[in-house]
């Protein structure tokens, strides 16, 4: 297709969040630039954009890569307000990062004032099987708990180093968002909230 088509497509704002050093930037860079860096470079905030076809439909992704360190947590709510879909990353070798996933998801609900929102949970670094301390079942369990009231939540295991499921995780997130938009999830959630009041 011509470039004009890609420009006409409204960009999807994806925000990548998670604890420090879990591989948010690695995932984002692997997806957008097909690169993997071994050394650490703490992110403050970076954004990338990439256009791709997902289910024969053009999508323009604006990916916001955020800081995981506590020093920068004050910025969180601001970029959460902008995001249309969230990729919550944790490292399967880092218990602390996993513990934070739940609170991050809760924060998304709160900032977005919704009960359901497209959220993809990614368990990263599964190439480091020897250091693994978070079982797949543990993560699945967490996501299933959320799925009870948020059908637009899913869990995928990834490895930014070996590029395992890297594309899938972003593509599936877009699919979740499309589903969410198609069902008018946003309006429903709001309405139900209002009726409660």
């Amino acid at each position: 297709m011509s470039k004009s088509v890609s420009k006409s497509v409204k960009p999807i704002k994806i925000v990548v969040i998670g604890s420090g050093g879990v591989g948010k930037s690695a995932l984002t860079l692997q997806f957008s630039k097909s690169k993997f860096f071994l050394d650490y470079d703490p992110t403050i905030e970076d954004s990338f954009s990439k256009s791709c076809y997902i289910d024969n439909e053009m999508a323009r992704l604006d990916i916001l890569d955020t800081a995981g360190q506590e020093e920068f947590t004050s910025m969180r709510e601001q970029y959460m307000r902008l995001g249309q879909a969230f990729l919550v990353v944790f490292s399967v070798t880092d218990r602390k990062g996993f513990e934070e996933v739940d609170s991050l998801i809760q924060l998304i609900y709160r900032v977005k004032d919704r009960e359901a929102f497209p959220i993809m949970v990614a368990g990263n670094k599964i190439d480091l099987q020897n250091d693994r301390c978070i079982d797949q079942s543990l993560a699945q369990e967490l996501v299933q708990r959320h799925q009870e009231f948020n059908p637009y939540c899913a869990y995928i295991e990834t490895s930014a180093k070996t590029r395992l499921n890297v594309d899938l995780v972003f593509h599936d997130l877009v699919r979740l968002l499309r589903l969410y938009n198609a069902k008018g999830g946003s309006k429903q959630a709001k309405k139900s909230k209002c009726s409660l009041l």
Partner: protein
Amino acid sequence: MVAEDSHCASATAATRMPTASSLHQRRLRQRGASSPLSMTPEGGKPLLTVRRKPSTVTAWRERRRRSASAVLFAAAAAVCGSRPSSGPSVTSGTETSAPLRQPSTAMTSSSGSTDSTELSQLISAMNRPATTQLLCDNFETLRSSQPIRFCQLCFVHLSFLIDVPAEAVFEAEIAEEGALHSGGLLGAPDTDRTDDLLEADALLSLLSARSPVDGLFRKCGAASRQRRLRDSLAEGAGDFTDITDSCSSHDLAGALKASLASLAEPLLTSRLLPYFQRAAAVPAAIDCKESTSTFSGAKMLKAFRLLVQLLPLSRRQFLARLLTEVARLGLAPVTQMSSECLGVLWGPVLLYPRQASDDSRRSMICEARAQAAQFNAAAAFLIKHATEVMQIPETVAKDAQRILHSLRHRRRSGAAADSPNSPPTPPPLSVRFATAPTTSDDFTERQVSMMFAAVRSMPESNRKRQLIRLLSRDDHATAAPVTATPSRRCHVISSPMSSRIDFPMQRLSPDAAD
């Protein structure tokens, strides 16, 4: 030679804040030609001899105006303060004095570029720490016996490097009038503050006992364990070994950062933090790959060195430990971190404004990203040069020695201080502006009138009234006969309004000056 130093100082001030320097020039005019080129302990004979004829100075001054690079050169000279050897302990002044002995040739040789070898000499002189025990001892003596002088000395040297408002010196004088205990001026640590530091100190000790791990300081520790650790440390219970054993290095690092971030008084003290931030804004900071071998890198190093010396003792010692440990642990190959990365993590802890609520901090990070990058880069610089930053700059140490000598000399000469042609109180600073223009200087007039205009346009405030009083007093002084004894002290600091007037630098270019 201080005279040359101070002469260059006026040039530096002119580059940054010409209005201030012109004020000084006015004062100097009224001071007359008695001893414009010497540092004089009041009542005594000049401590240092004059090496350059005044006429040469005037000629040089004229040339300075025409050459932009000369201004830079003068700044470099003033900053590094290299001078022909005059003190007993000067060991290496001779080779660095060369560029200063022939400033006119240096100025005229090329207006576009400064000789690179001379510049590198200046830089190396600027970076040179005080190594001899005598210099360090004298520095410490001055700090403990004359805290005000010490403080002012540091601020004066600092004013050659970064913008320092005159409040810095006013503040010192106010403290002088009141009851002063030696630590008070430099921010005496309260008990609770030291307690705060104790916690961070304990955490640092625990952390330094560990070996570096992958992604140290970068990966977050568990918040619950960190809280437990900090709580138990706060209680002061002796049995926290089981807690510390359960903590990973990441937990310790996170707790350390959190502890420092939650200090009631920031580690670099709320008084000095703005200066640290200004030092961070020295251009080198943006590209922190620049080492101290560049001019701006050297400038930053010296500014940080001075600021570190102004910190209260407990904080200075802690900062020294913190930086060396962070550098040692964080830069170990196994962590896979560079000093730039560490800067990103430590910048917020060390240098970001503290009073910042969440909102302002967010706006700082999001909107003033360049500034945040500067702070981060400066933190990286501090970590990279952890040991160097703690050293005393040689030039400052020599000045401290000189001040001590002059004080001793005065004590010995006793009543000499009461002689009529000396100010009733000794000038707190040993630096005086040496340029006394003999001809009418319309450049100065213009600058002063500009400053008047700027002051008048300020919003009504105490500060404005104070400034107007200051300016009109100065005007009056100029009108008075030259013989009038200047009782005012010599404020050499750049400008009381440095933060308020944006002086366009182009005005200093040759065209504007002529």
